[in-house]
């Protein structure tokens, strides 16, 4: 298994290089220019040229890319053009902030969806099944930025039980998971983020468990006279690897941060950071963020694969 883990980690290298080349190219292909966010709009040609030189943006693209790559290999992701702070500082702060709600959202979604999906599969065609299918359709199809605005209006503006925006009363630096006065800032973003995974995981749990329940070995268990609960336990255990894979993907999507949700809640996470980097063409920041996110996605998939092996020894990784 360890050899497999190391192999998978090594596979991450070409993925990271590929991702970084593509996004480097895309930023340059897109119209707009990082210089424009630094200079006043009526700047002269000479000033533009001077700033380009001062920031090293006058070099040919491949050189700029290689320089960036060389530094990135040593762990130095460069400095944000806009804030002048190290990119690694910016990205890891934002990643921490996004993870805090993403993990919460996925756990919440997973627990609910797992229970709901299993019950639905076991009671196919009955009321509970229709309810679960309904929840899953709602979760997948409601635009979550709309839901976010509605939740804010209901809970923050009308009933005033939860705050509308921000990460804690003093900002992310004083955010604390063990203090309700801070945690309450995370409730609405977390609920909103949980909706899509809730829908997706409910649906896949239902179908995975239902599939398993239809298999021969379940007939066999029934024939042996096992109780319904025991049969369900067996079925769920067999369906679990598939559900875990879906959940891992969902967590991967969420750590990318949702630009819309984080903007609505002014949550200082990766989505918010990335949208700012895109709008100002802050190339080092954008590159650094995408690289870290791509690697996190690879890492999460690896962890999920290993978890699957633990849960189901039939899946051999060698």
């Amino acid at each position, binding site marked *: 298994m360890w050899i497999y883990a190391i192999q998978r980690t090594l596979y991450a290298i070409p993925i990271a290089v590929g991702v970084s080349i593509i996004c480097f190219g895309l930023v340059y292909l*897109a*119209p*707009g*220019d990082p210089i*424009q*966010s*630094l*200079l*006043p*709009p*009526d*700047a*002269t*040609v000479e*000033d*533009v040229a*001077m*700033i380009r030189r*001062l*920031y090293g943006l006058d070099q040919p693209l491949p050189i700029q890319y290689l320089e960036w790559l060389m530094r990135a290999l040593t762990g130095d992701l460069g400095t944000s053009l*806009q*804030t*002048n*702070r190290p990119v690694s500082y*910016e990205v890891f*702060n934002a990643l921490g902030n996004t993870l805090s709600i993403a993990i919460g959202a996925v756990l919440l979604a997973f627990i609910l969806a797992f229970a709901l999906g299993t019950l639905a599969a076991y009671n196919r065609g009955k009321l509970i099944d229709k309810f679960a299918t309904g929840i899953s359709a709602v979760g997948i199809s409601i*635009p979550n930025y709309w839901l976010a*605005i*509605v939740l*804010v*209006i*209901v809970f*923050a*503006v*009308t009933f*005033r039980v939860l*705050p*509308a*925006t*921000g*990460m804690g009363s*003093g*900002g*992310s*630096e004083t955010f604390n998971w063990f203090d309700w006065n801070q945690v309450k800032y995370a409730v609405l973003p977390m609920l909103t983020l949980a909706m899509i995974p809730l829908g997706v995981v409910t649906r896949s749990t239902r179908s995975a468990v239902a599939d398993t329940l239809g298999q021969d070995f379940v007939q066999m268990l029934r024939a042996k006279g096992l109780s319904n609960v025991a049969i369900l336990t067996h079925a769920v255990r067999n369906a679990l690897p598939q559900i875990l894979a879906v959940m891992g993907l969902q967590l991967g999507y969420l750590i990318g941060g949702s630009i819309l949700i984080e*903007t*609505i*809640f*002014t949550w*200082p996470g990766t989505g*918010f*950071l990335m*949208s*700012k980097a895109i*709008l*100002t*063409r802050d190339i080092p920041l954008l590159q650094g963020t995408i690289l870290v996110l791509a690697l996190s996605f690879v890492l999460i998939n690896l962890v999920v694969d290993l978890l699957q092996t633990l849960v189901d020894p039939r899946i051999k990784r060698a």
Partner: protein
Amino acid sequence: MRLTQSTLGQMKALVLAGAAALITTMSANAQSTVTVAMTAGDIPDWSGQPDQGFEGYRFVGYSLYDGLLAWDLSSTDEEVDVVPGLATSYEVDPDNPKRWIFDLRQGVTFHDGCEWNADVAVWNIERLINEAHPAFNPAQFARARSRTSNIAGAEKIDEATFAITTSDEESLFPYNLPYVFMVSQCAVEEAGNDWAAYSDNPSGTGPYVFESVVPHERLVLAKNENYWNEDRIPKHDKLVLMPMPEATTRASALLSGQVNFIEAPSPDMIPALEGAGMNVVTNVYPHTWPYLFNTMEGAFTDKRIRQAANYAVDREAMLAMLGGVATESYGAYIPEQENYGDVFVYEHDVEKARSLLEEAGCMPCEIKVAISTSGSGQMQPLPMNELVKAQLEEAGFEVNFEVIDWNTMITMFQQGAVAYPDYDAINFSSAVMEPFSFVRGFMSRYQSPNGGNWGGYSNPEVDDLLEQALTTYNIDEQNELIREAHEMITEDAARLFIVSDLNPRALAPNLSGFVQAQSWFQDMTPIIVE
């Protein structure tokens, strides 16, 4: 899952209105704190020259720092003028029109206790123009550039006097100085000339002192008890600045009591905010929303077609759509400004527009216009441009929009129409706060990419008047010349004049004392929190 902007807006307004009806009281803000929700996507840089456009100057620049000159923001009904700041007076050297001599205010100290004097003044100018200066910083250099590009150097005359030399003679030079902030030399040197380190402990002379920051989230400033201008010592303890780019979020944050001062609520939310007891304030200010014509190539090289467009636009219909947060515009200045003059007013007249187009032989008159999806000062670009398009097409134009993002739009503006010959116009908001911005917008020598004259507008008579203004040192005579030039460009239909903004803001009912000046900049210090 895509909703049109107006449906979404209506939806938001509807839900907010319902919510607002349920609110009866605002929670009292215990501390004497003004908490501002800005439209910016990030906290403006607080280490000297701010970024994030004029919003950065408004909330961060003028709070922490002062320039040699300042704006008088104390009135709602008078045009904002330049007044003494860290310099008490200035004059142009009688023997050399390129040398400006400043008497510096005495007894002013920076927040860190260091003294303000001629050495610090010279150091501040040098750091912004000289790449070899130990405290040179590319970002600060870049942001100050359109104000400092004519500065050749600075020299100390004595402790209380210093001089700035310009490269070209320019009578309007002093208008640049409120935009150039003076920072504490000791603080920067203590930080080893490292601006990132300096930003942990910034020090200016302004009415607020830096207290703390959570990057991207909030900047906390505290009242400067020892501010040199006693009339402007803040009447509250703290000023907290929070970036909140989404208009719905700003409104919710105000309604839920998380902030008590918001910038630019969207027009469809104003009734709901007012219904909940918020004070919505507006005022005229030099912010127009025009189309800048490409006058070097294409349809708008013809004055008749420019005039036709100006006749075709129904400004009243636009005001109705904007719910009263704008006024009609017929010039680059606004009527409240001294240099507005007796402009030519293009009343809405579709027939006249049609006959002008026919006369010019351009029917249907196909034009290509770049518009942005959002951006500083762009108001509500998408619905507003849709309306302009409908109005122009009624008169015989055929309008093709190229919709681009704000950064691309700035690139386009900076490079000028000369780099985009197939575009006939761009929708780019304009701020003529002082004569210099006007000159840069309309003189042919400032044709982009060498200034703010995007479309390469060139009118020898206007050039002549403005050339004279640039060498006239009597302010009244200077204004006379500029006023005449302004009247000329309106008659010449140099732009498609549409509306000017009234900049709505909403304040919680427990805030009083705010005076909305006719400016992009505002004085936060008189606000009282009850």
